[in-house]
C-alpha cells in the first residue's frame, strides 16, 4: 500500500501544486497556515473536487470519483445530526450494501474499539468534543479505507482534551495499515502524529494569489517548521 | 416659530375647506353601477360643494350593511323587499320606485352552446346568490318556465356583475342577469331574450336613510335620480320607467 500524489488543484483565486510519495503505513502531515489550500488538497484526494491537473495513485490504482476506498475525517467532524453515533458509523457500510443489522453490529464494534460504545445511541449534539472525534474517526475507519484523510483532527477540541486525544489518535494511526494524510496548522500535531511532514512554505510575496504556480516548486518543500 | 405658524395656517385652511363641503354615501345595487356613476357625475357638476361616494354591491348585502349601522345617506336597491326590510327596521322613510328592470340570458359571444331559451340551460350556469334580488328573480323566472337547474351546476355570484363575469371571463355556459347589465357588457356577451310570459319585472326603490347626517344633500341626490335628467340616463342604460 502506497500513495503517489502529483496534483494541481484550484480553489477560488489560487492554485496549489503538490507532489509526494508515501509508503505503506506512513502518516504524512501537510502543515501550513490557515487559508493556504491544505483542505482543498485533502478534498481533492477524497474525490470531492476534481484536480485541475494530475492524479493520485493508491497501490497502482488511479483514484477517480467518489465511492473509492478513502476515509475522511472532517475538521468539525460533520457527524450527521439526525443520526445516532452508531448510525453515523454504519452509514458508509450501508452505502456499500451491507444489511442494516450487520452494519449496526460492525458500527458498535468500531465504537467499542474507540472506547465510546456506551454512546452508540446518542445523537451528535449530546456528545462531548472528544467523543465526537472518536465517533468521527470510527466512521472514517469503518469503511476500511486504504487512504485515511484527517482534516485538522484536533482543532475543534479544547486544550486539555486535545492533549489526551493526540496520543490516543497516535495509537489508532499506529494500528492503521493504510496511508494517512493529515492536514494541520499546528506544528505539534505534525511532530507527534506524522512521520515525514511536508509544509507549505511561503516564498517571496506574502500575497496569497502569488502562492504556488508563480513560484514553481515552492508550494511544498521538505523541511521542518518552516514559516514564521 | 415661523414654521409653527405655517402649520397652523395649513390646518386652518384644511379645516376651512372641509367645513364648506359635505359628502354623502350612496349605497346602490350593482346593476346601477353605470347609470349611477353618470348621474353622480352630473350631480357633482350641479352641486360642487357635495362629494358623492358610490358603494355598489348586492342589494341584500347593502341592506345588511345599513342594518348593521354602516353609514349611508341614500339607498337604491334592485328589489323592494330589501327596502321593506330597512323600512320595517325604521331605517328609511318612504321610498320611491324610480326604475324597472327585466332579466335576460347572456352567453359567450356567438352563443357557442346554442342557447335559445331557459330550457336550454345545460352545463354550468351562473346565477346570483339567492339573497341578492337578481338571484331571487332568476329563481322566479326559472320556476315560471318550469325549468329546474340542479344546484351542482350553478355557480353563484355575490352580485349581478360577478354573475355576468363568470360568463364573460370564465367558463360558465350562460347566466341570468338584468337586461341593463347585458347591455352594458354587450361587447363581451350575447343576449338571449326571456319571453315576457315567464319574465319578472324588478322594481328599483330609492330612499334617504333616516339617520343620514347630510339629509339635505341626500334628498337632493334622490331628486336628481328621479328627475328628468336622471330618467334619461337610466333609460339609456336600458332601465324601464316605473
Amino acid at each position, binding site marked *: 500500500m502506497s500513495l503517489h500524489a502529483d496534483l494541481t488543484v484550484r480553489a477560488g483565486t489560487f492554485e496549489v501544486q503538490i507532489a509526494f510519495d508515501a509508503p505503506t503505513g506512513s502518516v504524512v502531515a501537510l502543515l501550513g497556515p490557515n487559508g493556504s489550500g491544505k483542505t482543498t488538497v485533502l478534498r481533492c484526494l477524497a474525490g470531492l473536487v476534481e484536480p485541475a491537473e494530475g492524479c493520485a495513485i493508491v497501490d497502482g490504482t488511479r483514484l477517480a470519483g467518489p465511492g473509492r476506498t478513502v476515509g475522511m475525517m472532517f475538521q468539525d467532524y460533520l457527524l450527521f445530526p439526525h443520526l445516532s453515533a452508531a448510525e453515523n458509523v454504519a452509514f458508509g457500510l450501508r452505502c456499500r450494501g451491507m444489511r442494516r443489522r450487520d452494519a449496526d453490529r460492525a458500527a458498535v464494534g468500531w465504537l467499542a474499539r474507540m472506547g465510546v460504545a456506551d454512546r452508540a445511541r446518542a445523537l451528535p449534539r449530546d456528545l462531548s468534543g472528544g467523543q465526537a472525534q472518536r465517533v468521527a474517526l470510527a466512521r472514517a475507519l469503518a469503511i476500511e479505507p486504504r487512504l485515511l484523510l484527517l482534516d485538522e483532527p484536533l482543532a475543534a477540541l479544547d486544550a486539555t482534551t486535545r492533549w489526551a486525544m493526540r496520543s490516543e489518535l497516535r495509537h489508532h494511526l499506529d494500528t492503521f495499515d493504510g496511508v494517512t494524510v493529515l492536514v494541520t496548522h499546528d506544528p505539534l500535531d505534525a511532530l507527534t502524529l506524522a512521520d515525514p511532514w511536508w509544509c507549505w512554505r511561503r516564498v517571496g510575496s506574502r500575497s496569497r494569489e502569488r502562492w504556488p504556480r508563480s513560484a514553481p516548486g515552492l508550494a511544498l518543500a521538505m523541511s521542518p517548521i518552516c514559516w514564521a | 416659530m415661523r414654521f409653527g405658524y405655517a402649520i397652523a395656517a395649513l390646518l386652518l385652511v384644511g379645516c376651512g375647506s372641509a367645513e364648506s363641503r359635505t359628502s354623502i354615501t350612496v349605497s346602490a345595487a350593482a346593476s346601477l353601477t353605470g347609470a349611477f356613476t353618470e348621474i353622480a357625475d352630473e350631480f357633482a357638476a350641479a352641486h360642487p360643494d357635495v362629494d358623492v361616494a358610490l358603494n355598489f354591491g348586492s342589494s341584500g348585502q347593502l341592506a345588511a350593511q345599513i342594518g348593521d349601522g354602516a353609514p349611508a345617506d341614500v339607498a337604491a336597491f334592485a328589489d323592494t323587499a330589501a327596502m321593506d326590510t330597512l323600512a320595517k327596521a325604521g331605517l328609511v322613510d318612504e321610498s320611491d320606485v324610480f326604475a324597472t328592470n327585466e332579466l335576460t340570458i347572456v352567453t359567450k359571444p356567438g352563443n357557442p352552446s346554442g342557447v335559445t331559451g331557459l330550457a336550454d340551460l345545460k352545463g354550468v350556469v351562473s346565477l346570483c346568490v339567492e339573497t341578492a334580488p337578481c338571484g331571487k328573480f332568476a329563481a322566479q323566472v326559472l320556476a315560471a318556465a318550469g325549468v329546474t337547474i340542479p344546484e351542482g351546476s350553478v*355557480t*353563484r355570484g355575490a352580485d349581478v356583475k360577478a354573475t355576468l363575469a363568470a360568463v364573460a371571463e370564465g367558463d360558465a355556459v350562460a347566466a341570468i342577469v338584468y337586461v341593463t347589465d347585458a347591455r352594458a357588457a354587450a361587447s363581451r356577451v350575447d343576449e338571449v331574450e326571456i319571453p315576457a310570459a315567464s319574465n319578472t319585472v324588478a322594481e328599483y326603490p330609492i330612499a334617504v336613510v333616516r339617520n343620514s347626517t347630510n339629509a339635505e344633500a341626500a334628498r337632493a341626490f334622490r331628486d336628481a335620480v328621479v328627475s328628468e335628467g336622471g330618467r334619461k340616463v337610466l333609460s339609456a342604460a336600458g332601465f324601464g320607467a316605473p
Partner: protein
Amino acid sequence: MNRPAVALASAAALFFVLPLAGLLGRVSWGTLGADLSSGAARDGLWLSLVCSVGATVLSVIGGLPLAWVLARMRFPGRSLLRGLALLPLVLPPVVGGVALLSAFARRGFVGARLYEWFGVQLTFTTAGAMLAETFVAMPFFVLAAEAGFRSIDTRYEDAAVSLGARPFTVVRRVTFPMVAPSLAAGAVLAWARALGEFGATITFAGNIAGRTQTLPLAVYLQLESHPDVAIALSLVLVVVSLGVIVAMRDRWAV
C-alpha cells in the same frame, strides 16, 4: 421610552384581539353543533379539507424541485425565476384568479388544448379549486424549503459522498432528513394559506355548492342568509389558524 411603547403596543394588540373577541361574542354557542353540521357547512368543511390537502400535496410536488433549483443551482435568470415563483405571495388573489382563467379556462391557451385533447375542464371543478389554492399556497412552501436547503451545511453532503453514498442516497439519507423541519413548516404554512383561499378560487373555480364552495366562500355567501352558520364556520377557520400559529411557534419565536 418603555412606557409609551407599552401603551402603543397595547393599542396594537387590542386592534388584533377586539375583532376576534367580537367574533366570539357573535357565536351562538347553543346551535354551534347544528350550524356546523348543516348541509352547506358540512359540504364546505369537507371540500375545504380535500382542496387544501390536495393543494398542499401539489405544492410539495412542484415546490420541492423548484426550491432545490433556486437554492442549489446558479444560472442566469435565477432571481427572475424566484421572483415569479413568489409573485403570488403579494399578488391580489383575484388577479391570480383572472390570470389562471386566461391560461386554464376553456378559451385559455392551455385550457383550450386540455379540453380539445383530453376533454378536461378545470374551471368550475374541484380540481380547479385545488389548482387555484395551489397557485397561492405553493410560494409559501417554496420559500420555506429554499431557506431550508440554503441553511444546511453542504459539507455534510460531502461527508456522505466521502463515505461512498450515491447522489440519490445523499439526498434521501442526509439532505432531506436535515431539511425535514423546514419542509414540514412550509407544508403547514401552504396548507393554512390554501385553507383560507378566497379570491383566486371564486374567480377561477366559481362558487358551486359541494364542488367549489370552500369554507371562505361559504362564510362570505352565508353571511346574509345564515349568519349563524357563517360565524360558526369563521370560528372553525380562526381555531385552525390559531392551531397553526401554536404549532409553528418554535420556528417563529426565536
